[in-house]
């Protein structure tokens, strides 16, 4: 089974992705992660204005199989939260890189993004 790993994103070993957009970056979990978790039933996220830190927990995702912590790929301030996930957690399964996004964060250290896994490196990890 092969999983979608978009080339233009950066990845964590713990299966979170981040975009590298100018301004705020978008954060979510990967196709591989949603498949491992199975049907997601609940997502807990921080609020707008909260601080997140690279490598530290920023929320929780719960499926019928497991409850997992979410680790932030970047440090910075949360500028937007995907509130659709509170009513429709299935978006994480259906479209992990699109409508299933979780946070938008204004990164405090943009250079740190370069230290995350590239799409190729992440592909190697999950294969």
């Amino acid at each position, binding site marked *: 089974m092969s999983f979608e790993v978009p080339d233009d994103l950066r990845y964590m070993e713990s299966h979170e992705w981040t975009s590298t957009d100018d301004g705020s970056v978008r954060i979510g979990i990967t196709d591989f992660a949603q498949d491992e978790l199975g*049907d997601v*039933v*609940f997502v807990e996220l921080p609020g707008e204005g909260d601080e997140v830190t690279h490598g530290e927990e920023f929320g929780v995702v*719960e499926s*019928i*199989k497991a409850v997992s912590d979410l680790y932030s790929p970047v440090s910075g301030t949360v500028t937007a939260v995907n509130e659709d996930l509170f009513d429709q*957690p*299935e978006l994480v399964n259906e479209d992990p890189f699109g409508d299933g996004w979780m946070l938008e964060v204004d990164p405090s250290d943009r250079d740190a993004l370069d230290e995350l896994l590239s799409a190729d490196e992440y592909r190697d990890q999950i294969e």
Partner: protein
Amino acid sequence: MYDQARFTQNGEYEPLLSEKDSTKVEVGGDDSPLPDDLTRDSLELPELSEPELARHYTRLSQMNYGVETGPYPLGSCTMKYNPKFTEDVAADPNAAIHPDRSERSMQGTLEMLYHLQDYLGRIGGMDAVTLQPPAGAAGEFTGILVAKAYHEAQGNERSEVIIPASAHGTNFATAAMAGYDVVELPSGDDGRVDLDALEAAVSEDTAALMLTNPNTVGLFERDITEIAEMVHDVGGLLYYDGANLNALLGRARPGDMGFDIMHYNVHKTFATPHGGGGPGAGPVGVVDELAEFLSSPQVRRNDGGFELFDPEHSIGKVHGFYGNWLVLVKAYAYIARLGDEGLEDASAKAVLNANYLGSQIEYDIPYGPFHHEFAATSGEQDAADVAKRMLDYGVHPPTTKWPEMVPEAMLTEPTEVENRETLDDLATAFNAAHGEDDETLEHAPNKTTARRIDQVSAARNPRLSWHALGDADE
């Protein structure tokens, strides 16, 4: 052979009483002090004959499964049949006392509570016991509040509680609710506490280590005295989660191992109903040094009788009056009926039954030697599918996928109440599933009232109150 009863009407399970037959009843006048939007003029109330009513509830019970239907080996939950004589004792009109009666007029009640405090103290090796907490988890919370009060009285506020990763979820919740940071302790390769990891975790910030012994996979923590020493050396307290005390009854006592505080799950160790939201009891015992902080009231002897008293620096009340009296009566009756020898026999049978069952099943059990429960692994099979398949053989399956230290875990605890034939029935169910292919497992169960439950919808769109009944009709 097993086939569960199934009563349906128009494709739905046994209808609600109000759906069978109901009558509109006019209620009240206009004199209610409540705002208009909170009051109703009429109510639809079920109106049924007595046989219809009796049959409704009997049908529901036949579509259910409980400890009076067959074995229920949910590891760590300890579901077991409770002997009926304890119900008789609790239903005795003499047991029905108003809690506000004068002490003088309820000496018998106080005497029984006093003796239960004493029995529990002697069973656990504790010096003082409060019967007040209304459940095991409430007992944990009470115990950790006592630890906190003790540290504060020492002028030494500590910030951390250490808990093994395999511990019951309530331990983490208890520590967090009491305002402590949780330090999670990984298990060692042998499934026990890793002493090096513990050494690294303990510090002057350690308020307590919460431990179950035997632990969650049924292993006795052999290094318990060394563990106690390490915690005590930094000024921390050792907390015993009484979940698995049924493995030690009459043979070993937490107090002798160095534990300072413990709670008793009277439903697991003795015989009271398994809470489930109803009244429960979770007494807490402590060593002398902590007695002054226990929740109040407790019972003590006075000149020629018994009286209630508040410990000097009590953390206060954690429940009304002296706790759930009628539950405590059942625990008392069970201990008194079994006596020393009976309790020792109960723990022997709990351990023997688990080991006999473990020896009869074809699934691997990675950790041992185990006591009252074991964590088998379903290996390449999905533990949840195996559990669903076991339902077809007329038994309740074990706890699945927990603890996480065992992949595809099937945590199994037959308890002391089952006989050999029942254990063989359980083994038959395990072994039948062991020999079956994924296709068969994935389509199980086939013989139960309800088949595969839609867990995803249930979790995503929970309907938790009667308001949701309206949604269900849509």
